[in-house]
């Protein structure tokens, strides 16, 4: 291993800003994308469920009024 200490590692031979700027933004993007997708996905599923139960309630109400 080429690093003598933790601070040596974080300094990246003087290129800390460039190296951590690259890896930091990449890591953030790769974490935010799945998080937003999950959030949007569960919103869509919730909306469909609500729609489905509303349709069922409507159907049973119209059946009752018909009988």
């Amino acid at each position, binding site marked *: 291993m080429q690093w003598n200490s933790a601070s040596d590692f974080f300094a990246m*031979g003087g290129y800390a800003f*460039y*190296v951590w700027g690259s890896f930091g*933004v*990449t890591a953030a993007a790769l974490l935010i994308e799945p998080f937003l*997708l999950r959030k949007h996905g569960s919103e869509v599923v919730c909306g469909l469920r609500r729609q*489905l139960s509303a349709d069922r309630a409507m159907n049973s109400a119209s059946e009752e009024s018909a009988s």
Partner: protein
Amino acid sequence: MSNRVIHWFRYGSPQSFYPLAGKMVPWFVMLAVLFGIAGLWTGFFVAPTDATQGDAYRIIFIHVPASWLSMFLYLIMAFWAGLGLALNTRLSSMMASAVAPTGAMFAFLSLWTGALWGKPMWGAWWVWDARLTSELILLFLYLGFMALQAAIDEPRRADKAGAILALVGVINVPIIYFSVKWWNTLHQGASISMSKAPSMAKTMLLGMLLMAIACWMYSIAVSLMRARTIMLEREPNSEWVKHAVE
């Protein structure tokens, strides 16, 4: 024997692909994390400091995989879009739409990490060089594909218009790849050549390949996640969606 035939086309319909994709996502996430850890370890602790570029070269471990993925994902997007256009299969077009945002993200990351690498090495965040410019055009092609699809209300027409844009834009991918050969550019040559022995240290190459596999696995997981939501959004009144969300 006849009942043992695998029904490949079964998975070509959203109702059978939806649960299958749901089962595949966690596996690809796990593989992405494992390869990512191995790649970062190799890149930061095993690979030596570069003789000419110092530790700034370590940006390669994310820059090259992001650039590869931005090009590969474009080809995959165009393939699915073209298949949807030719065969009128709705799942293919949904896959194309599912890949586009992830491809755009990798194109952005390629430019971002490239700028952060260019500044200390060339003294400039950006130059109008063939490689950089064609990669910027790739980002605009992704954004154009997404904007075009979003602008057309009817999904099947949006698919067709998007497919034509995606297919025309394919010409840009070889331009990016060969730009460093065809023009005199500031950008260094291809990191990996098919015809020559690798010029970099074995551990550097290994770290780059591990990170590329991690990005692949990530892209597959995220595209499948997005495809699942697109399927639900596009067919909200179908019976299979009612069963799937219950």
